[in-house]
């Protein structure tokens, strides 16, 4: 996997780019000197790769791997992992158990490749026995879960990384920056050289054209199923699964973008909204957040 950084001057700001967490990442910086822009991008890339290495389910030996291969034995975790687990618990409750970091094992029967291979209810029923946070024994700092279950921080990881990086940039007390990890982004400050950061929300082309958001500061995060889905008998199965049933959430919007003070908050509101399926807009109206929803 490529771990290099590219730095270019794009119009009137520096644009540093690298790959992390399976997404193209960029840091747009209003630094004056190239070396300041490189310093900020390197700092962000280092933190992104650190979080990726620590919490990725694909790497052997990291904390997630140790938890997932513990086979029922208790594992003691560090503070950062403990904080993320506590956060996951809050989300589990706020979402009425639909946001569940143990639901990753459902990928054993659901493969969202755009085909029509929808699993049968028997195989879904079988894998469900290894899904459910209620089966996990979490007493900080020790986690124990039954053999066969797995945790996956994929639903929180990117937004968390974005906010961590924004915090590091603010500590540097430098020029305004925009940190964007594949569409989950935060602006550390309002830009100095133009009226706002311009962020495009992709549309479907003719029916739903692209929209442009003028972001002065704050975060944007998007949840959606634009690319990963199954299509069979005219029914579109979104990749967002309901862990309580093992089946996709029904009538979820195609895409929800939220603006909030932090990327984690924006990401979690958009996730909670998508999990509401048909009631997504109703939920978002009640939250008093800026949102853009596409069906």
């Amino acid at each position: 996997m490529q771990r290099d950084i590219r730095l270019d001057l794009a119009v009137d700001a520096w644009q540093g780019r690298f790959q992390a967490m399976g997404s193209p990442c960029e840091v747009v910086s209003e630094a004056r000197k190239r070396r300041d822009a490189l310093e900020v991008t390197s700092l962000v890339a280092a933190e992104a790769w650190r979080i990726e290495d620590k919490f990725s389910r694909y790497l052997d030996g990291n904390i997630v791997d140790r938890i997932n291969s513990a086979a029922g034995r208790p594992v003691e975790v560090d503070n950062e992992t403990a904080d993320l687990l506590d956060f996951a618990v809050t989300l589990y409750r706020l979402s009425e158990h639909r946001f569940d970091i143990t639901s990753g094992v459902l990928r054993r029967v659901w493969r969202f490749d755009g085909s029509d291979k929808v699993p049968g209810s028997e195989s879904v029923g079988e894998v469900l026995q290894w899904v459910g946070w209620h089966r996990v024994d979490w007493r900080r700092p020790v986690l124990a879960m039954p053999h066969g279950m797995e945790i996956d921080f994929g639903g929180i990881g990117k937004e968390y990384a974005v906010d961590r990086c924004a915090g590091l940039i603010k500590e540097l007390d430098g020029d305004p920056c925009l940190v964007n990890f594949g569409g989950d982004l935060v602006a550390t400050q309002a830009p100095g050289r133009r009226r706002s950061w311009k962020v495009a929300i992709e549309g479907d082309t003719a029916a739903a054209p692209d929209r442009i958001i003028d972001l002065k500061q704050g975060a944007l995060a998007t949840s959606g199923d634009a690319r990963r889905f199954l299509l069979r008998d005219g029914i579109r199965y979104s990749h967002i699964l309901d862990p309580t049933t093992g089946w996709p959430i029904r009538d979820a919007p195609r895409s929800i973008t939220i603006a909030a003070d932090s990327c984690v908050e924006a990401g979690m509101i958009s996730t909670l909204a998508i999990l509401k399926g048909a009631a997504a807009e109703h939920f978002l109206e009640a939250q008093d957040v800026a949102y853009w929803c596409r069906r």
Partner: protein
Amino acid sequence: MRRTIGVAAAALLFCAGCSSMGVEPWERDILAKDEMQLTTDELEAATDDHIYFSKEASSGGRGFGGGGCGCN
């Protein structure tokens, strides 16, 4: 006529030599303001172009002249 082309060519060559002049990308704040654009109001400029094209023998300059009308 030839003199005009000569003057125009000289002016453009002089400007091409301006390659070392200008500002750094972060000094473009004033230049980015609406009122510093070369054409501030497109509709007002088009209106003037059209009026003067109808009443005088010259047209254009800034862009393509007004035109395309049987204006009297």
